[in-house]
């Protein structure tokens, strides 16, 4: 990786946006990379869109803020509309195709739709939709290994939520498969 990767994650409050972002930051820390997670904690998180940004880098991170992301991960339609123009040329959007149908994307931006709600429901609960998306992102970015993601996930869930580890791991796996199928 020659330059920092700027990732923006956005969706409704409750979709696991912050956890998605933190998971990436924890993975980077686990792999001895630099990472920075910035939540949007303004009034807009109440009832509106929730978003956070993550920067992953092999060298010291300078600016903690960026306008144009390398990757946008959009969990719902309003988030996609709000942030889709704020992407670098040649950038990419991963979106939740269970909630976003036939999106109009900016020119030169690749889009990958993953039906994370449907996959999560198949697994048994909508709550793992964010980890399904994380799986897709990991497959897309090739930033972190499964071993890293699983180790971090286990730590994140802790003892109290250890019983949820299996289903979340499955979600990551299914997300990876879905993205692999799209990449062809």
């Amino acid at each position, binding site marked *: 990786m020659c330059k920092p990767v700027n990732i923006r994650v956005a969706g409704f409050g409750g979709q696991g946006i912050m956890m998605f972002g933190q998971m990436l930051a924890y993975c980077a820390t686990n792999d001895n990379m630099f990472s920075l997670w*910035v939540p949007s904690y303004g009034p807009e998180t109440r009832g509106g869109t929730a978003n956070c940004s993550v920067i992953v880098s092999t060298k010291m*991170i300078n600016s*903690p803020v960026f306008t144009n992301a390398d990757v946008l991960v959009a969990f719902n339609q309003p988030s996609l509309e709000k942030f889709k123009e704020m992407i670098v040329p040649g950038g990419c959007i991963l979106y939740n195709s269970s909630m976003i149908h036939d999106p109009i994307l900016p020119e030169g931006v690749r889009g990958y739709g993953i039906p994370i709600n449907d996959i999560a429901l198949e697994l048994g609960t909508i709550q793992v939709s964010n980890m399904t998306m994380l799986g897709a992102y990991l497959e897309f970015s090739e930033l972190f290994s499964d071993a890293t993601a699983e180790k971090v996930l286990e730590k994140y869930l802790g003892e109290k939520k250890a019983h949820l580890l299996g289903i979340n791991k499955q979600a990551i796996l299914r997300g990876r498969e879905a993205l692999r199928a799209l990449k062809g």
Partner: protein
Amino acid sequence: MGKILMKGNEAIARAAMLGGLEAFFGYPITPQNEVPEYLSRYLLEEGKVFVQAESEVAAINMVYGAAAAGFRTMTSSSSPGIALKQEGITYLCGSELPCVISSVMRGGPGLGSIQPSQSDYNQATRGGGNGDYHVIVFGPETIQETIDILKEAFDIADYYRNPVMVLVDGLIGQMMESVDLTKPVKKRFLPEKDYAANGTKNHPGERHIINSLYLESNELEHHNLSLKKKYDLATANETRVELINMNDPDYVIVAFGTMARVCRSAIEKLAEKNIRVGMIRPISLWPFPSSVFETMDAPHLKGILCVEMNLGMMLTDVLVANNGRHSVGFFGRAGGVVPDPDEVVDAILHFNERVVK
């Protein structure tokens, strides 16, 4: 030990514990709530003192009490809360009591907003309390630097018997970054706290009186002059600054905290356009690193741009330090807006429109 991912506010709390914090007094306010939240659990686990006071004013006066009794004590707040603490801060300075204050800035004036800002630069470096006093203020740029300074802050406070403030913006408080808690910091030789009022009729220990009242003019002037000596010593020994890219620059940026990090990115972008930009990054905001402006060797310098997340506060210090030598410009965003590097790039490219003096 390897690096761990930590939220800025939690890092402030943990670093203070590593620095020897024995008693914390605070009152909730966004965006620093994780500081007392963290300490309410972990400081108590270590058998130390944690009190959620009934107000900011009560909290700072509890700090006064704990400091007078010889304990390593701290309070934390954000802009309007720090405003309420000003009376306590001048009393701490007047009575020569050490403490650490963490100030996590949000937008102002008044209740302002809960978004990050640097608009308490004047509040921190000038203070809102009465009398001839100074607070030693540091403005770190990363969570790592915040940790390193906090670990050292109690030593500095004890050394000078004066409050030390660690001033960060809400972004540093709220964001998460990989940090190393084990980095060693400078340790100082500190004498016994022979001033501590830790004895009572019923408690062994010496009885002392600590106050800031000197009714005789000569006595007070003597006290003022001895404080001044201390502040001069701090100016000589505690001034901290990082010089970045200062080899024959076209422009020099002056920025601290989060803004300095944004400017680092801007400097990289400007280098791609063959514009050489250096940076003076004050780490101590009081004492302000004025002397580096005098010794700066920049024969081709076109100007100095002060960049802040306010409408021009550190600018005053920059203008005084520059002393008319170079053209000084200003770029700032206010109200909780964190400018991105492109805005700073633009400000340098259009420096002439930014000139203040």
